[in-house]
């Protein structure tokens, strides 16, 4: 018995010994691996140093060391959403998210850029201001001169061939998204960009099927991204042989890409961070920008839009001064704010700015500065003009009259929003019709409830509406609210649903909808605010081509595009873009020939003056016809570390609109 148990023992010892040997072998192997691994890593880092990054960064640092602005290591940014691609083709294509923009936008250049805060077109890779279109044999051509001193981050010059290549890639691989407007190659485009050719390294010729307006040249084609031909040519050739060339371009490995901006993309850890490093071959490093009181913009020695009268209001020298730019991803706003307060990040880049609840935290933090700016957007109430009562102008005007925007924004929304009267935001002074705004304010602002009701009743009566009980105001100012509005055809107005995003999505719009419901009911319009999921609202407004569009009213918002030339009038209200016709953005069913002409005129305008005139006409029509009642918008509030020095902080849509100034920020 003892023997047998001893035998068991021996067997166990043997097994354990065997295990130990195996373990030792594995362990040995592991440790060898580790050593190899680390030596590899060392080699790797040596290579990196040889490769140039580190060494040259140090050199760059040395050069900048003398600069007054000084240099700094890490420009740490926080974001509340991850990027979705690192491929620039994809970013301009289907993945044009604002976060991709923050990380990638600064790594490419274009012929022209928009200089902020002046909102003026200035040359980037081009020489001088945009060339004029000339009518020729095959259509209208534009011959644009380019600079000869610009290089990609790998030292290759940026030439006209890169522009021609980008056009070829976009048109042959049939790229979508913003590429479509940047290089309008499709036959549907008006005008169509039929060819882009490089005459020599510094001359590029664009050929259009028709005369391009400002909206196309320079505001789409002139500011279009230029991609490096020497890097992407082989990828394009390969993509064109595949079933889905566009997909192949979007999905291509972007680690081969080079930069033409002040920073270049380096790495991405999904869900955690993205990292850019300084482009030490940045061509415009050291270039001085100035903006003057009279609107003159000076870049280097050249002056545009004036002769430099008055004081210099903005002046900065291009860097980059940073060596790396990191984007930490926080899923939660409060976490991002805390990181900012704790100094873990220098700036929280966010399209909406810092929400009200977090502002006090930022203001109480000694290490932070704040920038508050108007935004380029609007939130509005839209009517369905395809049916009664939305089809009647008097009805729309009456509803507009009832909405007390000042009360709504100041009292109800606690001042987090500001009232708006025009489609073009006040922040875009260039196209803002102050005169019309003053007229509208006179009509709507500070009007007593009694007067509102009286005027609204007049407007409704003018269109033939009647009531079961007509709203009225007696001499002493006592108001009798209306009941049972009846439309001009004699049908009782059915309950008007106000679709608005729920409080959990946007408390401002949700609250506004409830107040508007009350105001409409005072007028005798049966109304019901219905907090509805954002996507559901969208599905109801744009059910698809040929589907019936049955909503009554809804409240949503728009973020508007290029402030240097607002072209959204055509997109939102031109009868060409009706939702039921081509799923276009004209959701209200507004169709007005006069307006269509004005909107077309904006696109076709050859000068800014023409564009302005057309926009003012369009705005006036909209203010009268009221397919939308513009309600309000919120300013954008941003915090950043006191250590940072930005070229300017007062600019439409804030610092985030300038992607955080990676090229000029200093510490």
């Amino acid at each position, binding site marked *: 018995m003892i023997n047998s148990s001893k035998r068991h023992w021996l067997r166990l010892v043997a097994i354990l010994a065997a295990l130990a040997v195996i373990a030792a072998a594995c362990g040995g192997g592991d440790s060898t691996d580790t050593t190899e691994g680390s030596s590899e890593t060392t080699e790797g880092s040596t290579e990196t140093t040889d490769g140039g990054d580190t060494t040259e960064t140090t050199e760059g640092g040395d050069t900048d060391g003398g600069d007054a602005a000084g240099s700094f290591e890490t420009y740490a940014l926080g974001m509340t959403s991850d990027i979705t691609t690192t491929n620039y083709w994809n970013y301009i294509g289907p993945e044009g998210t604002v976060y991709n923009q923050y990380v990638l936008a600064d790594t490419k250049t274009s012929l022209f850029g928009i200089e902020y805060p*002046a*909102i003026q077109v200035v040359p980037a890779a081009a020489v001088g201001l945009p060339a004029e279109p000339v009518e020729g044999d095959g259509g209208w051509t534009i011959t644009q001169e380019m600079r000869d001193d610009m290089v990609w981050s790998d030292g290759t010059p940026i030439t006209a061939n890169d522009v021609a290549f980008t056009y070829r890639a976009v048109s042959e691989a049939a790229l979508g998204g913003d590429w479509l407007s940047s290089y309008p190659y499709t036959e549907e485009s008006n005008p169509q960009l039929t060819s882009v050719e490089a005459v020599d390294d510094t001359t590029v010729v664009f050929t259009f099927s028709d005369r391009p307006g400002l909206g196309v040249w320079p505001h789409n084609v002139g500011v279009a991204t230029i991609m490096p031909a020497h890097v992407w040519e082989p990828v394009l050739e390969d993509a064109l042989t595949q079933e889905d060339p566009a997909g192949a371009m979007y999905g291509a490995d972007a680690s081969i890409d080079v930069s033409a901006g002040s920073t270049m993309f380096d790495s991405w850890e999904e869900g955690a961070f993205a990292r850019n490093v300084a482009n030490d071959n940045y061509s415009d490093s050291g270039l001085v920008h100035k903006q003057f*009181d009279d609107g003159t913009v000076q870049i280097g020695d050249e002056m545009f839009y004036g002769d430099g009268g008055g004081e210099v*209001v*903005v002046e900065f020298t291009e860097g980059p001064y940073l060596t790396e730019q990191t984007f930490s991803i926080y899923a*939660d*706003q*409060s976490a991002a704010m805390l990181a900012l307060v704790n100094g873990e990040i220098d700036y929280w880049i966010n399209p909406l700015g*810092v*929400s*009200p*609840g*977090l*502002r*006090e*935290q930022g*203001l*109480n933090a000694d290490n932070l*500065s*704040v*920038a*508050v*700016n*108007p935004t380029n957007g609007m939130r509005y109430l839209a009517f369905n003009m395809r049916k009664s009562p939305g089809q009647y102008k008097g009805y729309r005007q009456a509803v507009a009259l009832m909405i*007390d925007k*000042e009360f709504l924004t*100041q*009292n*109800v*929304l*606690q*001042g*987090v929003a*500001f009232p708006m009267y025009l489609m073009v935001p*006040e*922040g*875009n*002074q*260039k196209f*803002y019709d102050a005169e019309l705004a003053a007229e509208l304010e006179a009509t709507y602002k500070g009007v007593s*409830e009694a007067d509102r009701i009286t005027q609204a009743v007049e407007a409704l009566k003018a269109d033939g509406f009647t009531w079961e009980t007509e709203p009225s105001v007696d001499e002493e100012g006592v108001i009798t609210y209306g009941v049972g509005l009846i439309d001009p055809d004699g049908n009782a107005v059915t309950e008007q649903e106000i679709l608005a*995003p*729920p*409080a*959990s999505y946007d*408390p401002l719009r949700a*609250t506004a909808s*409830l107040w508007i419901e*009350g*105001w409409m009911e*005072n007028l005798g319009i049966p109304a019901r605010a*219905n*907090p*509805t*999921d954002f*996507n*559901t609202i969208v599905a109801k407004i744009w059910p698809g081509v040929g589907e019936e569009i049955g909503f009554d009213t809804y409240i949503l918002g728009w973020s508007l595009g290029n402030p240097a030339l607002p072209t959204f009038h055509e997109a939102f209200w031109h009868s060409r873009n009706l939702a039921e016709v081509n799923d276009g953005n004209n959701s209200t069913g507004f169709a007005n020939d006069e307006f269509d002409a004005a909107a077309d005129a904006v696109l076709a305008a050859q000068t800014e003056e023409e564009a302005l005139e057309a926009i003012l006409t369009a705005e006036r029509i909209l203010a009268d016809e009221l397919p939308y009642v513009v309600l309000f918008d919120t*300013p954008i509030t941003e915090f950043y570390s006191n250590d940072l020095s930005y070229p*300017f902080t*007062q600019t439409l849509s804030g610092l985030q609109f300038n992607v955080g100034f990676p090229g000029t920020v200093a510490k």
Partner: protein
Amino acid sequence: MADLLTKPEGDAPEGEAIIATPLWRIRLRLFRRSFARNWKIFAQNKMGLAGLAIIVLFGLMAIAHPIFMATIWDGHEEGGKNVYDPRAGADAVIVEKTVVPDGEITDPTTQIGQTEAALQGTGLVIPEVGTVMTAPLANPAPPVISGVPHPHWLGTDPFGGDILSQLLFGARAAFALGFTAAISSVLIATAVGTVAAYYGGVIDTLLMRLVDLMILIPALPLLIVISGFWDLDLIKLGIVIGVTSGLGGTAIILKSQALSVKVRPFIDAARVAGGSDFRIVLQHITPNVLPLSFLYMMFGVTAAIFIEASLSFLGLLAIDQSWGIMINIAHTQGYTLQGLQVWWLMIPAGASVTLFSAGFFMVARAMDEVVNPRLRAR
């Protein structure tokens, strides 16, 4: 029992009287008796009583809301809306501070002017460095008991809405949702359980595979996707939660209960007496499963409230006002990590969801001890 047996057999009038007593009255009497007995067991459980007290408290809160609106909160109008309206009410008077970039707190009346001046300064004309627009601070007011036009006993949310009013209104929403979900859940679970138990065979297999599936798929992700794709209001949500949870574990438990009822002699008796299947299921099996159904209804309320509040918190529900939305607003407006400084934003709503769930959970557990004697304390 003994009394019944010793009744003289030939006493015709009394016998008739017994027969003449409607069945429902006998049932009611039986129910009352069993209720009294069960209540005695239940009442011994302190946890259950505490749970019941919590539920009653929330019930009072739900009732209090319309009463408050009609009494102490009546007549507090601002621009035609009552400031205590749980959905749209906003008290603008309490906005006291707005902040300019250098951190100074200024008077709100100057705010509009400043904003406009600043706005005009942007665009073509570049403003002087230093003149900037103001950043209004949304301002959740701390509790104010008196001394202001509109006192807020629990403070206000960032938009000036009265927290107490929202909280009380939320109790109504919670009851509406909880009961809708619980009732639909138990209806489905009882139907599935009894039908599967009674018929067996293919019907049983099919139903049980469906149940397996529902158990396997965690409810929250499924409801997240459903609420993401469809527009759900409170009642619809309640029904969806009820259906998903009713097809889950509860159905299995009720089925096993129904199985044990099915083999009892009176079912055979009913069948021999020519009762239809439907009648047997409805009249004989279901009543015996009901106590257990009722128990799971209580658990169902807890689950439903939790799911609603989670979905609201994630901003996936389009409903007017609920405790989940109150937390969501505090969260999305950025008050989550400010802790106790703004306790009235996070604590009342969160504690309400928790307590409400806990109340039903505790009652359910105490009822569990009534239904399942093995759990009783010695």
